[in-house]
């Protein structure tokens, strides 16, 4: 009887133990994955390895140069070596997220006689070697034209090709990329000690820009100011912008603001009986005016403001002083990435004999000279660094040389690539840190597109196709930013952990406690049995 009872109890205990183990197994094998799967935040697969590869991307910028020799510009035995190809490489180490390498491919081609000089612009850079007298005066060694061409003086020398090669590289560098241009383009991505306010001056790259000219007339009682802005825009600004149109879309508008005051009171200078704005007070000038300028209702492009300020009668004439206290010749200043302000004093003769308000016709040539120069600076088209003994041609009528535009496109492409890379890398880092971010399929496809565009742009830069590289780099920026700023990323971001626990505990605690309890009991019992059997042994 007792034996039967104990064996029955044993069977019962074993059955209970098996049931407990089975429940635990079901909970672990089925329940946990089910819970994990149903509460997971959706994340489409992303090319993480490629994104981290972008971080160490080395850009190779190629500048193909075709050299055309005129007949008597090189010694005869050298002519027989032609045509051949030389590659000149130069490293520009910029310590930022990635390194820049620069290649300069110099291709020396056949002996041609070039007399009818190019009317249509060549696709790549050309350097012409000419007889001494044809283009250049005696003391100049080279000439940089407004298009993509330059003329370099040929020599009759044993080492003629080497010497000329060096000159060509000098000229090609002046016309293409320099360290300064790249450093300015990457100003935002470089460590602090590398940048200066000068490099931060150009506007950030964007697919479009809005240019607003505002005439500020704080004293309409005394001045009735008229400006022919339509004509000035059509004559001076539009040609410049259409030359620049490869770099983005531009829209131009203008407005007249009355009773718009500057933020600071000008000081009176008794010596010249004029008023002046000292340089240190200029930063305070803009803010009160800016609230009147209004924001653009029609687009999201960055706005460049150009203000023409006609000082009120009580404060005129008004001059801007530089650091040394001398009046600035143009009476204008610019604010990096914002725009420019010019003070336009009314001719004092106008007040003689006439009643107020005095009619003022603004001399738009004077104004637009200043504004266009500021516009060039704000777009980062700096003064070229001309190699010694080189003659620089006058600018074309648009105020922009073709190779300056090329240089701008290079800088913008590099800047775009840096921006896109930073955006993608930050996105990847963010995803690693915050597990709640959802990545939908369309966001993922934007990321893929951005990565592909970055790679394509880098390839195009390396093979010297500037225009397509620029387009690809713009696409990289737009795609990467669309992915980064997609609102769907934030959908589950506000889901704090304490709330999760508040919801899970009522379910998980009652279910987990018996399972854990019986598992612990089973574990203890088996250890006891183990010990017992060891002892009996």
């Amino acid at each position, binding site marked *: 009887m007792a034996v039967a009872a104990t064996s029955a109890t044993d069977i019962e205990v074993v059955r209970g133990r098996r049931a407990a183990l089975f429940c635990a197994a079901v909970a672990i094998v089925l329940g946990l994955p089910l819970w994990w799967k149903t509460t997971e935040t959706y994340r489409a697969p992303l090319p993480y390895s490629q994104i981290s590869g972008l971080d160490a991307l080395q850009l190779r910028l190629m500048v193909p140069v075709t050299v055309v020799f005129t007949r008597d510009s090189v010694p005869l035995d050298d002519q027989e070596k032609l045509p051949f190809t030389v590659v000149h490489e130069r490293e520009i180490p910029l310590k930022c997220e990635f390194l820049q390498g620069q290649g300069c491919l110099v291709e020396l081609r056949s002996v041609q006689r070039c007399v009818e000089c190019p009317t249509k612009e060549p696709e790549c850079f050309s350097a012409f070697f000419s007889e001494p007298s044809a283009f250049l005066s005696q003391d100049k060694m080279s000439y940089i034209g407004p298009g993509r061409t330059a003329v370099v003086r040929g020599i009759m020398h044993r080492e003629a090709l080497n010497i000329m090669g060096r000159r060509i590289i000098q000229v090609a560098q002046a016309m293409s990329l320099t360290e300064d241009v790249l450093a300015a383009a990457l100003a935002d991505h470089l460590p602090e000690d590398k940048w200066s306010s000068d490099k931060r001056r150009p506007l950030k790259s964007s697919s479009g820009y809005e240019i607003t000219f505002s005439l500020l007339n704080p004293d309409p009682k005394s001045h009735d100011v008229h400006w022919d802005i339509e004509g000035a825009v059509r004559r*001076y600004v539009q040609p410049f912008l259409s030359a620049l149109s490869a770099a983005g879309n531009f829209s131009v508008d203008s407005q007249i603001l009355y009773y718009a005051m500057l933020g600071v009171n000008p000081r009176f200078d008794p010596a010249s009986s004029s008023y002046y704005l000292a340089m240190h007070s200029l930063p305070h000038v803009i803010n009160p005016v800016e609230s009147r300028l209004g924001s653009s209702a029609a687009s999201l492009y960055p706005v460049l403001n150009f203000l023409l300020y006609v000082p009120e009668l009580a404060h005129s004439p008004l001059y801007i002083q530089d650091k040394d206290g001398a009046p600035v010749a143009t009476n204008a200043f610019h604010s990096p990435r914002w725009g420019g302000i010019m003070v336009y004093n009314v001719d004092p003769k106008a007040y003689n004999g006439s009643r107020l308000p005095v009619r003022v016709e603004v001399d738009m040539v004077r104004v637009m000279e200043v504004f266009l120069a*500021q516009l060039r600076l704000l777009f980062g088209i700096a003064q070229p660094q001309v190699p010694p003994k080189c003659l620089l041609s006058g600018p074309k009528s648009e105020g922009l040389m073709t190779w300056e535009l090329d240089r701008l496109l290079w800088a913008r492409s590099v800047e775009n690539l840096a921006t896109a890379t930073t955006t993608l890398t930050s996105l990847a880092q963010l995803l690693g840190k915050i597990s709640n971010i959802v990545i939908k399929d369309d966001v993922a496809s934007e990321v893929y597109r951005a990565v592909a565009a970055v790679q394509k742009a880098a390839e195009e830069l390396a093979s010297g196709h500037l225009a397509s590289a620029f387009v690809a780099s713009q696409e990289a920026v737009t795609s990467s930013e669309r992915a980064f700023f997609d609102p769907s990323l934030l959908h589950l971001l506000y889901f704090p952990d304490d709330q999760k626990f508040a919801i899970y505990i009522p379910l998980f605690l009652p279910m987990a406690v018996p399972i854990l309890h019986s598992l612990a009991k089973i574990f203890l019992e088996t250890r006891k049995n183990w010990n017992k059997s060891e002892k009996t042994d």
Partner: protein
Amino acid sequence: MAAAMPLALLVLLLLGPGGWSQAEPPRDTLREELVITPLPSGDVAATFQFRTRWDSELQRERASHYRLFPKALGQLIAKYSLRELHLSFTQGFWRTRYWGSPFLQAPSDTDHYFLRYAVLPREVVCTENLTPWKKLLPCSSKAGLSVLLKADRLFHTSYHSQAVHIRPICRNARCTRVSWELRQTLSVVFDAFVTGQGKKEWSLFRMFSRTLTEPCPLASESRVYVDITSYNQNNEPLEVSPPPTTTYQDVILGSRKTYAVYDLLDTALINSSRSLNLQLKWKRPPESEAPPVPFLHAQRYVSGYGLQKGELSTLLYNTHPYRAFPVLLLDTVPWYLRLYVHTLTITSKGKENKPSYIHYQPAQDRLQPHLLEMLIQLPASSVTKVSIQFERALLKWTEYTPDPNHGFYVSPSVLSALVPSVVAGTPVDWEESPLFSTLFPVSDGSSYFVRLYTEPLLVSLPTPDFSMPYNVICLTCTVVAVCYGSFYNLLTRTFHIEEPSTGGLAKRLANLIRRVRGVPPL
């Protein structure tokens, strides 16, 4: 930020051929006007109007050079091809019954319609709406009538309505060329009786805490009109100082009115005293006679009890002694009030009134509200009641506003009518007459156009318990946990066959007693 630097002038400007022959830039003009009307109830209404007219085809010519017309609005018209835009911000309610018909009323809230109409009754109007509105004025708030626009006084009023109206106006009879007109209006009603310690006298300084000092040099017309119409013909009960140089008489909103006119561009007006502070004094205390009731006014309310059904009623009053006239009633009701159109009843003088035109567009949940438009003939001296029943819908729990027990607003209904005049007006030249009379031009002098808005309504909807989802989760989890617990218990419990034990507490107690008694234990 800024850096002064001498600029190297390296850009050479070439002049394009024939560039100088350029037509005159499009002409734009600014007119500004302030109308001060002492209201029958003793309050004072002040209506500012600033009108910028620009002779430019904004959309066709892609004009982008702005002078007086604000750039922000011009860009909006050009980019989105707007035909017309009316946007108004209103705080308070124009009490037509006591104040008479307004020049231009706006619903008490924010409304804008670009080919469409929308009202946001919940929005509050405050100073931050006034500042951008003032920035649109060419003279900002530095000169002209706009110096009076001081936010702290304008918002201490019984009624405040600021609006922007943009519309194209024809430049010639066949309308082949249009100009764009921007009217910025601001109406305020000062409670003169309360703020003036029981006196009904007012002055510009007392109302706005400013006086007029100089005209806006950009305005081609800058005038102040003061309504000095006397209601009884024989004597002049009020006196305005300084005495007006001219007066203006016209038929405004169906009755003959007299206005004292002050032209700020008239240099003699301001130069004499450096500033213009208009004052109005009553020669003798105004009689507390019942003010003339306007011919058309309306009222609206919600009735019914409980949270399921209700009724929307609109009362339309026609107080004209002998003329009936039609009224266009436009109602937009949010979708969460499900209207029963078959319950729509219109009764006047106890009889059913059949509308001559009905347009009903049913609501779509979460997409569009009900739209009900009716043309109703109002019999002479009658009250017409328009009522319709509705059922309140349940919203999704995320659709409730942060304070759901406050209720949900139903936008006011709009009444548009041509009300017969008492006095026949004479058609006048549109550009010459004052701005306040040309907001709604009527070619026919025998009636005038009125647009009224009723009160916005506040309807409470059934609100759920917002902690319900969490409660449900907790309850479900508890039920699941209890079921699981007993099931688990049943599965894993081991059954032992218990030997009958040697006895519990009761047995030991009994044995103790037995031992004391000397009886053998159990």
